[in-house]
C-alpha cells in the first residue's frame, strides 16, 4: 500500500476509467488524481535520491520470468516532471474546453498512465505496450481538434507512430530470439561488443523506431501539423512530455543493455540532432501560424537532446545536461503552448501577424510567453541556460568545438523566432481592427501558463538538486 511506484501507475488508470464512466466529473477526477500523483512522484524522487534505485517485481516473480519495475534518478525526475506539467495543464484544459470535449479527460488519463508505466518499466515488451498506450492516446487527443486538418495530422502521426512501434517490436523480437529474455536487467550483462549480427540489427531497429516517435530529423515531418493543429492543452502535453518519453527510452537503452554497441553509432544521433536544431529553427522563423511556430521550435529543441550521445561518459555531465534540457524544455514548451492557446482563443485568429498589439490586453499571457522564450533561448538564470551551460561544458570536455558553435547558433536562432512573436505583440500597434481582443480570457488560463513559464526559469536555480537526483542513475 505504501509503494508510490505502483500507485503512480494504478491511480491514473483508475481515474481515466472513471472519467470515461462519468464524463461530467472528468476534470475533477483528473485534477485530483494528478495532484496525488505529483505527491507520489515527489515521494518517490526523495526515496530514490536517498536510497538509490527503487524496484518492484510485478507478480512477485522477478525478471526474467516476470516484469520488473525500476525507478532510478532519471526515471524519478521524469515522473516528477510529467505530473508537474500535467497538473497545471489540466487546470488550464478545464477552462479551455469548458465541457466541450469530455473525451479529453479519459484520453489524457491514459496518456499520463502510459507515460508513468514507460518511465517505470524495465522490460522491453512491457515498454512496447506502454509506447502504444502513449502513442494511441496522443493520436486520439490530436484528433479531438475535430476538423479535416487535425484529422489528417492525427492520421499522419498515427502512421508514423505505428511504423515506429513496429520497428521497435521487431527489435524486441530479435532480442528475444537471441537471448531468450526481454528484461533489461537480465540483458545488460549478456550483450557484449561481439554480439551476433541480429543484435546489431535489433539495436538499430529500436533506435530508429524510437527516433521516429521522438520526431528527430528527418522523421520530424509528422510533428508540426500534429502539435500545431491540436487544441492548445493537447499540444502542450505532446510537446512537453510525449516526445520526451521516447527520448527517455532511447537514453535508457543506450546506457543500459546496448551500451557496448552504442559507442560505434554515437555520431548519428548527434548529426541528426544538429540538423534538427538548424532546420527546426529555420522553419520556426518562417512559420506563418503561431502554434506552428511553437511546434517547429519543439523540433529544434529536441535536437539539443540528441547532441549528448557522443558526450556520454563517466563524468555524467552530458546526462545532467540532457536531464536539465528535458525539464526546462518541458516546462517552457507547455507554457508557450498554453500562452499561445490563450492568444488564439481570445483573438480568434492564429497567424503570427495577427498577434499584433495584444500585449496591452493580455499582459500575463505575453509575459508567460516571454519567460518561456527566455528558457528556450538559454538566458541566465533559467533552466534552459543551465542545460546549455552543462552541454557546452560536456562538449568542451570532449573537445567538440563544432558542437559548442552549434549550440550558440541554435540559441541565436531561437532568439530570432521568439522575438518575432514578442515584437509583434509588444511593439507593433494594433492594425485597423480596433477590437482585436474579443473578450477577457479566463484568469486561470493565463496564470497556469505563467506558473509553468516561471517554473521553467526558476528550475535553473534548483539545478543542483536535479543534478544530484540524476546522480542516482542506474
Amino acid at each position, binding site marked *: 500500500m505504501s509503494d508510490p511506484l505502483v500507485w503512480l501507475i494504478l491511480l491514473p488508470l483508475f481515474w481515466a476509467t472513471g472519467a470515461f464512466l462519468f464524463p461530467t466529473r472528468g476534470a475533477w477526477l483528473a485534477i485530483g488524481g494528478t495532484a496525488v500523483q505529483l505527491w507520489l512522484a515527489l515521494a518517490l524522487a526523495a526515496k530514490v535520491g536517498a536510497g538509490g534505485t527503487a524496484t518492484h517485481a510485478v507478480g512477485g516473480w522477478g525478471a526474467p520470468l516476470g516484469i520488473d519495475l525500476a525507478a532510478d534518478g532519471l526515471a524519478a525526475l521524469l515522473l516528477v516532471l510529467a505530473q508537474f506539467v500535467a497538473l497545471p495543464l489540466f487546470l488550464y484544459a478545464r477552462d479551455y474546453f469548458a465541457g466541450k470535449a469530455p473525451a479529453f479527460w479519459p484520453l489524457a488519463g491514459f496518456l499520463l498512465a502510459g507515460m508513468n508505466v514507460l518511465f517505470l518499466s524495465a522490460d522491453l515488451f512491457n515498454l512496447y505496450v506502454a509506447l502504444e498506450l502513449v502513442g494511441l492516446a496522443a493520436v486520439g487527443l490530436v484528433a479531438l481538434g475535430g476538423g479535416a486538418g487535425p484529422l489528417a495530422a492525427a*492520421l499522419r502521426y*498515427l502512421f508514423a507512430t505505428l511504423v515506429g512501434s*513496429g520497428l521497435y517490436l521487431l527489435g524486441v*523480437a*530479435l532480442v*528475444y530470439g537471441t537471448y531468450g529474455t526481454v528484461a533489461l536487467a537480465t540483458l545488460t550483462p549478456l550483450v557484449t561488443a561481439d554480439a551476433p549480427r541480429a543484435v546489431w540489427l535489433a539495436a538499430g531497429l529500436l533506435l530508429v523506431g524510437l527516433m521516429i516517435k521522438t520526431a528527430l530529423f528527418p*522523421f520530424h515531418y509528422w510533428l508540426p501539423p500534429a502539435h500545431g493543429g491540436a487544441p492548445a492543452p493537447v499540444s502542450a502535453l505532446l510537446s512537453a512530455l510525449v516526445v520526451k518519453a521516447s527520448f527517455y527510452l532511447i537514453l535508457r537503452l543506450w546506457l543500459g543493455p546496448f551500451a557496448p554497441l552504442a559507442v560505434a553509432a554515437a555520431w548519428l544521433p548527434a548529426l541528426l540532432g544538429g540538423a534538427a536544431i538548424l532546420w527546426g529553427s529555420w522553419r520556426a522563423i518562417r512559420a506563418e501560424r503561431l502554434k506552428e511556430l511553437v511546434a517547429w521550435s519543439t523540433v529544434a529543441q529536441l535536437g539539443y537532446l540528441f547532441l549528448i550521445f557522443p558526450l556520454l561518459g563517466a563524468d555524467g555531465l552530458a546526462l545532467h545536461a540532457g536531464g536539465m534540457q528535458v525539464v526546462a524544455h518541458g516546462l517552457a514548451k507547455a507554457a508557450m503552448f498554453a500562452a499561445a492557446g490563450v492568444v488564439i482563443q481570445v483573438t480568434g485568429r492564429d497567424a503570427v501577424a495577427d498577434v499584433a498589439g495584444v500585449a496591452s490586453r493580455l499582459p500575463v499571457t505575453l509575459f508567460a510567453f516571454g519567460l518561456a522564450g527566455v528558457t528556450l533561448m538559454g538566458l541566465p538564470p533559467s533552466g534552459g541556460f543551465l542545460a546549455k551551460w552543462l552541454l557546452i561544458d560536456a562538449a568542451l570536455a570532449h573537445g567538440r568545438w563544432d558542437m559548442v558553435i552549434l549550440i550558440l547558433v541554435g540559441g541565436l536562432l531561437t532568439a530570432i523566432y521568439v522575438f518575432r512573436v514578442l515584437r509583434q505583440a509588444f511593439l507593433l500597434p494594433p492594425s485597423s481592427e480596433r477590437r482585436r481582443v474579443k473578450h477577457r480570457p479566463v484568469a486561470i488560463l493565463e496564470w497556469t501558463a505563467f506558473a509553468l513559464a516561471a517554473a521553467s526559469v526558476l528550475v535553473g536555480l534548483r539545478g543542483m538538486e536535479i543534478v544530484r537526483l540524476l546522480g542516482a542513475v542506474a
Partner: protein
Amino acid sequence: MSTGLIFACGGAILFVMGVAGVILHDHLLRRILAFNLMGSGVFLVLIGLAQRGGVPDPVPQAMVLTGIVVAVAATALALTLARRLFALTGGYTLPKDGDE
C-alpha cells in the same frame, strides 16, 4: 533450416513489405492493411526465432496475443479516423505536404 527459422524468414519479408506499403501507398485503407501486414510479420519473427530450436515457448506466444490485441486497437483507431476524414473530405488520402 528448422520450421521456426522458415517462419521467421517469412515474417521478415512480410514485415519489410508492410513497412514499404505504409510508406509508399497513398490510399489510407491500403496503408492500414500494410500496417497489419507489418504486424503479422513481426509476430511471425517473434515466434519463429524463439522456437527455432523446435521447443514450444509460451512467452512469445503470450506476447503475440498481446500484440494482436494492440494491433486491433490501432487498426480500429485508424479506420475510425479514416472514415471520419472521408466523411469530411470525400477522399481516403492525406493532403500532400511533406509525406514520408
